[in-house]
């Protein structure tokens, strides 16, 4: 069972794309890869005017991640708390993980030629902090949820 998830309160989100830049900035990513994405789709109009539903997508940190077994160097690792991350030392940039992932989540970092993806900001989480995208969300629309152990 995953211990964590990120939840978006669509009522508060204003589609400002702040979270995407908060993420790129904390991960030191160059132009190119995005580890999270905000999307807004028009929903059937309300009283004749469009309304919008916002969605936030990072990595799903799957229960049975297909990206993990396919990695030839065991660089893709699932932690006991559910976080799936890439050991940058071991990654050789073959991008097999991106092919295996149903949503092609892992992306190439053109600066390092290695795969990158969302790791729920595990360094911050391990230090008792929240992920960058959540901490700095412009409107406090993103929440980092820790599942209750049953």
């Amino acid at each position, binding site marked *: 069972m995953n211990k964590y998830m990120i939840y978006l309160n669509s*009522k*508060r989100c*204003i*589609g*400002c*794309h*702040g979270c*995407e*830049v*908060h993420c*790129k*900035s*904390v991960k030191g990513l*160059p*132009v190119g890869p995005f580890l999270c994405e905000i999307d807004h789709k028009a929903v059937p109009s309300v009283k004749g*005017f*469009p*309304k*919008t539903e916002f969605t936030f997508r990072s990595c799903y940190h799957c229960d049975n991640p297909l990206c993990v077994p396919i990695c030839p160097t065991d660089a893709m690792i699932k932690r006991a708390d559910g976080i799936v991350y890439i050991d940058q030392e071991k990654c050789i940039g073959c991008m097999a993980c991106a092919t295996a992932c149903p949503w092609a989540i892992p992306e190439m970092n053109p600066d390092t030629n290695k795969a990158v993806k969302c790791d729920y900001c595990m360094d911050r989480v391990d230090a008792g902090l929240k992920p960058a995208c959540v*901490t*700095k*969300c*412009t*409107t*406090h629309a993103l929440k980092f949820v820790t599942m209750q152990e049953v």
Partner: protein
Amino acid sequence: MTKSVFSMCGMCTVRCPIRVESEDNKVTWIEGNQHLLGGALCAKGSAGPALVADKERPQQPLIRVGDRGAGRWKKVSWDTALDYVTDKLKKIKEEHGPESVVLSSRGGPWQNMYKTFIHAFGSPNYTNHDCTCGRNTHHASLSLNGVGRKGFIYDIKNAKHLILFGRNMFSSLRIAENLQTLDMLDNGGKLTYVDVRQTMTGLKADRFFQVRPGTDYALILAMIHEIIKRDVYDHDFVKQYVSGFEELSTFVEQYTPAWAAKECGIKEKAIHAFIDDIIPVMPKVIFHPGWNLSRYKDSFYASRGLHILNVLMGNIEQKGGLIIPKGPGDCGVKGIRSLDCAKPDIKRADGVGWKYKHFDKGPGLAHLFFEAMEKEEPYPVKAWITMRHDPFSGMPDPQRQKASFDHCDLLVAIDTHYGEFSWYADVILPESTYLERESTICVQKGLKPRLAVRKKAIEAEADTKPAWWIFKEFAKRLGIDEYFPYDTIEELWNWQLEPTGFSIEDFDEKGFISLTDDPIMYDPKNLEGKFATPSGKIEMISKKLTDAGLPSLKEYESPLKPEKGMFRLVYGRSAVHSHGHTTNNPLLNELMPKNSLWINTRVANKLGIANGDLVDVAAEDNSYTGTMNAHVVDYIHPEAVYMVHGFGKHIPLQSRSYHAGVSDQKLMVGKLDDWDQAGGAINLCESFVHVRRSVQNLKRRVEL
């Protein structure tokens, strides 16, 4: 080792409070101040380190060697650049008098430093960017309430209904205000939004009026009409504080909701339903009087109307209404010292104060200097210094501006990045980025006033300098340095803080100094003396306007309809850019590399324009054309086309934004003189453009 400092963001001019961490002089983390914003920051805020790292900003002082605008520069030392500028200034002063030098800045809490400099030099000609921003709103408030635009803050969090006319707050982003608005909505408050197009703010609204461009004033008049007619306005408030209410009542009799509905192209029923909604929640109803209302020919009167609506709500100094900001005095604390030098007793070149007596003399009006430059009336203008202000990006018709600026012997640009004006200037003095510089301490008035300061997070990477140093060096060379009583920023801070008893270390705990624990409110039944009009009342009829031959209650005039094939050009902001400041920032450019032209689906179909097609957008006289992608949408009024402001820059050293998108300013040919005689601001939404599908859409058939 990780270093952590509280500071102020500088990616846009909202200046959100931030906390910055760095290691080995590299910024590793920026967040919104936890004490004030709970960490929240926007995309621009997080893109700050990308600005520091960007080598496409000036790295040292530059002196022009080719023709103006040719882009040939000599890299020089600070000493050489400062000597060059001050030697020229001395010569100009000798030949033409000190008043022939103008200094324009962006404005903001640090403008007294620039003002002090130009006044001490001997010129009254300080100005700022506000004629393309809040001047109409400012003068509207002054004429009615006797206090300017900043004379009220809006207690949105506690309001029950917020009404925004074209104020697209979820794209222009003031985080604290955005949080308040979303909290209000979470608590069951309502939002009414009026605009010519649907925006992110409109998407959050409970009611959206899509009006014909330029008809805001009609809807406002009808709202006033209906509130008076239904007799639901705050009688006690009006009786106690308002003069000229009878004239107002008579004036608005003709402006019925039925009339406005027709004029604006909305439903009469919806106006009535809106009034029904606000009556039970008065006075917790805020009509936002606008911010950047330098738009239509009657925006000044529209803003007055919005202020009048607030008065009718009786919401002044009420929870959930308009609050008078409190300062150090209200907290029993002495204020800080600020740099200051009295304005020389010389007529301003822009005519403000003598030719135009109804305008605030403070920053005057930047656009009125052009005529002075061209005609040398009342005297020649020979030098212009811009301090973080880009006239070519901000004001219409840069071609015309260039011709005027050619009357000057010296053009100096001080800024962190290249601007369209700096590219044309004679000298570029690069300021350090906001993460690499300190600023003077400022007072932030409010319900809970506080002192704030910007501290540097890291040492400057390039050979750039903070403004406090640049002006001190100017002053030393010009023999006016007694007005700048410091050598280091610490000395300046200490001098500022001395009367208050606080020390600079007091900022360390939270990043600001709170002057009170509890919010301070005045007694709403006892606001006498708070309205600094001639009569002390909120005046529906302003003597200043009457004396200037202008009406206080202006008859409505229907806006022009565009000719066939033409559209009214409206502009706005996006959440990921601060106008032209950030279009070349790598991380923000990645999100929005260029602007597009919003156009109504129905009219686009008629013109054969599909979503994403390239369209040519041409100025009214066809003297300037830009090509951009069309963004075809249902929810923009068919008379209008819209673009995000700040694009279409032609600065070769900015490789990402070079020729990306189209500049609205360049399309406003001949519009520098189209300004509001009553409000002072430029009418930036009174331009019409031609739109056609571009021939560049053709697929190429031959490749050699």
